[in-house]
């Protein structure tokens, strides 16, 4: 390797562990269905990338949110494309998580010792769904408002604590600017960070346990 790389590596020490990681053996008869999870992860990275770009122009306030989405779509250079990529990555992310789950199920790769990793995957799936739910409100248009109105009212049906729960989710009795900021914060901070932690655990266990032998 080059001099600069060696200088960094002598302080950072990434070469040795990565050598082990890259040269680890994999089962011989794996096929392309083993790539479904990796494809889902690609969409997660695209979501992070396009999401960061969108956050440059998006304004999470009751008065400005809709206007800023109109601006991103009509005025910002390639803004429409970034928005489209974000939306499609989200849909494809969910689709490929489902396909990946089916693949793992068919190949019995959920069996111990991979049971904990299966559970990590389920948490990732739920986190992805929650991201979709919170992200749906952000354009702050008719569709977003009423879908979230119905969606959050489901929390209100829980016995005893339902009203408190719904109030906590909405940040008030109705959906308003507080809900928007709450959902925005969940969508761009809490959920992506949770997802990153879950995915780190997911990949760490794959690395430690190796790829499950096929049928």
């Amino acid at each position, binding site marked *: 390797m080059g001099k600069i790389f060696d200088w960094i590596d002598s302080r950072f020490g990434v070469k040795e562990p990565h050598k082990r990681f890259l040269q680890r053996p994999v089962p011989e008869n*794996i096929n*392309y269905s083993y790539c479904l999870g*990796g494809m889902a992860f690609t969409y997660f990275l695209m979501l992070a990338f396009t999401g960061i770009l969108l956050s440059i122009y998006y304004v999470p306030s009751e008065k400005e949110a809709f206007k800023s989405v109109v601006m991103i779509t009509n005025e910002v250079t390639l803004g429409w494309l970034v928005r489209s*990529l974000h939306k499609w990555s989200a849909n494809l992310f969910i689709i490929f998580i489902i396909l990946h789950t089916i693949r793992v199920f068919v190949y*019995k790769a959920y069996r111990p010792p991979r049971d904990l990793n299966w*559970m990590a995957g389920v948490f990732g799936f739920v986190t992805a769904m929650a991201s979709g739910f919170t992200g749906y409100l952000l*354009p702050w248009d008719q569709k977003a408002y009423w879908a979230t109105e119905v969606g959050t009212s489901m929390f209100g*049906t829980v016995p005893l604590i339902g009203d408190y729960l719904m109030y906590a989710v909405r940040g008030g009795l109705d959906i308003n600017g507080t809900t928007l900021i709450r959902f925005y914060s969940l969508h761009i901070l809490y959920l992506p960070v949770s997802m990153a932690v879950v995915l780190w655990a997911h990949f760490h266990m794959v690395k430690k346990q190796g790829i499950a032998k096929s049928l």
Partner: protein
Amino acid sequence: MGKDRKEKRFYPDYLSEIIFAILVSIEILTILALLYYPSIGRQIDFTRPFQPRPEWYFLWLYQFVRYFPGKSAFLGTVMIPLISVLLLLLIPYIDRGKNGRLKAIAVGSILLLMFLILTLLSVL
């Protein structure tokens, strides 16, 4: 060395396949994003009634709620989704014992069919 060569290694055997899959993923994404870009919605207007429509992966949940009116709504909105996630989490432990795999297949296909059928019903 002869033996080593037969064995597949992550690099370069598997990594090249993953990179191919990543390129395909990005291609699918780009084509869809260019062809079907989202339009701007209508501004919020409380005077106009609006039929709420969630993302496609929540349609099954909205459909479920229709079957549980009034006080039993709690079953459709909270209990069934919670039980579904719990069952999915416990799949490795449902697959135990003699007919474990069969039980796991039963639970797995019920969850998948529930999702697919309810989604279809809500679209129709």
